[in-house]
């Protein structure tokens, strides 16, 4: 199809389909009694648009172009359909004196320091080791396993740090993460040594 139609036309068609798809999504969202058909058609149009992007520029560029297009069209639609309210003055706020004294006590301070240490040092090592051990289970080459680790450990690190940031049982979490790190070190070096 794209062999006969010039890329400019397929590009424009992809843009049109994406716009129509996002518009139908908006309609489905805006009108509460809207038919589910809108959602299905929107999904089909968006799938068609992504397929055209991929056919036009290859799977790598095509996916990126499609994701950028959908973001920008959705933003445009949000701005166009925004509700305007009359501007109001912000409630008067008193001015603090510049209090530079930290009101937290020593125990809280040390717990905060410990939490940050776990989030950004321990979780880092744990995430790299865990993703590496998990990646080793995939039936692919070592290079691919290392690449899977390289691209997924930031995500795993964030999930660990998110968990540590909300946990009420910091010591338990620390013990658990430290044990996991130890286990992963043993698996990685103990088994393979």
């Amino acid at each position: 199809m794209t062999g006969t139609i010039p890329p400019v036309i397929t590009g424009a068609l992809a843009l049109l389909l994406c716009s129509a798809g996002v518009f139908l999504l908006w309609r489905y969202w805006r009108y509460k009694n809207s038919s589910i058909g809108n959602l299905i058609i929107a999904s089909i149009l968006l799938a068609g648009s992504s397929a055209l992007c991929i056919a036009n520029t290859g799977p790598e560029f095509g996916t990126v172009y499609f994701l950028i297009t959908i973001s920008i069209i959705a933003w445009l639609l949000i701005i166009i359909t925004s509700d305007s309210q009359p501007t109001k003055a912000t409630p008067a706020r008193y001015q603090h004196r510049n209090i530079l004294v930290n009101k937290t006590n020593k125990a809280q301070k040390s717990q905060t320091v410990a939490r940050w240490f776990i989030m950004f040092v321990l979780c880092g090592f744990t995430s790299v080791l865990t993703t590496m051990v998990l990646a080793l289970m995939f039936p692919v080459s070592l290079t691919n396993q290392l690449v899977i680790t390289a691209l997924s450990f930031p995500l795993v690190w964030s999930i660990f740090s998110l968990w540590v940031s909300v946990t009420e049982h910091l010591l338990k979490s620390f013990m658990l993460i430290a044990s996991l790190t130890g286990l992963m070190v043993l698996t990685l070096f103990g088994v393979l040594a």
Partner: protein
Amino acid sequence: MSTVNNKVSSLTQQPNKAKPSFSKQMLNSHSTIGLVVAAILYLVCISGTIAVFYPEFERWEQPNIPEFRSLSPQAIDNAYQGYMQKINNPSNSIYVVLPTQELPRAHVSDGENEWWLDSQGHLLEEVSQPWTTMLKDLHVYLHLPKNIGLMIVSLLGIMMTHLIISGVLAHTRIIKDAFSFKRGGTGQRQSIDLHNRLSVWALPFHLMIAITGAFFGLVSILILIAASAFFDNDRDALIAEIYGKEPIINNAPALDVVNTMQTFKKIAPKATPIYTVVQNIGKDNQYIEVAATLPERLIYSEIYHFNADGSFIGEQGMSTGDIGQQAIYSVYRLHFGHFGGYLIKLSYFLLGLALTYICVSGINIWLNKRKGVDNINFLWSGFVLGTPLALSFSFIISLVTSLSPVATFWGVVALALGLSVYIKCEHKIKATLAIYNAVALIALIICYQFLADPKHYSNLQYSINIALMVFVVCFVIYKIKVNKKMLSLAHS
């Protein structure tokens, strides 16, 4: 300060209080991390957004360099000859960076010294882009020592991923408010809506930027662990495993760049060469590499190895290797938006601006929720508007004097912070610094007009000047409109 400290300490839960809901916990985590990293994140976001156009700024900074779309094999050879005549003790790797669509000029480099080339390959003046280098260094290293800076910026990638995940999990009305945007009012709802809508709809882009950003610096931890686990602590072996091995050469023949480029054209007719390197120049093991982009491929380049006489050795396999290898080679272009021409650059610029706004609005939302105002409000306003002012001012200084743009940048940021604490009124700080920003941009255009020789102007120089002028006009109109609204509210 106390409020920030309390917020940071809020990660220390009180055991006697009722357990907050999951989304509330996520929101707490989101705002705490956001508060801690906001200032650095803002610097990285704004510098990264502007740095999308760094090749254009490089051209703008040195407008007198001849521009052309291709460099003949003979000209490449001339560049190497010229370099060897100029440098007595050559470095191991000598690059000739070829003209591309985005940077239609060529230069020769050994990593330390760089000279522009004319279309015949003759060496011209040295490459000198102090402001663009300052901008890139701000984005990548925050002007800190390189190892520390890169580590901090990469950790920021982790925190950004943390913010994205916690933001999504905290957002209980993510579907219900998918397209909702209420403008006006006190401005707080508008900020929250815009913060959420911009974040949610560009989530894949933000996640990609965060993960690839984290990858650049923190991959060293992975290399450290993987090298000791699988390669007997041999890091070079690990890197060779992923990025491909270099050829082993003995008794290398004399250098023949012309023949190399002719052979390259025959073996890879669809590839577009971006640079050539002579490795171990003048030594027994010298050889030539040609890096080239391939159509419809996101990988940074494929690398073709040649013997010094131009006979083909083989490809490094970046385009044909494992799928994982290809993904790793694509990270650079994906993060920096260096593909697809100006449309993609503009899109990356827009998405980067959105990310910068998300960062600023996140803090503004938190500040507005507080009952009072203190120095944090003033310093934040000063920092947000002082940073673009510092960027413009450092550009002017680098045009007019030989002072370091890095020192100028941080000096202006410090002055803006001092001024904001002195003024002690958010509206006044914003209005004053907005005027300074507009004036600085106009001064920049005027200085450039006076200092750069118009006979060297190309479309690019005119385009940047006009774009900056249009931006200043739009910015001033917007500020006048906002000030009028504020005045009418004050009167009513």
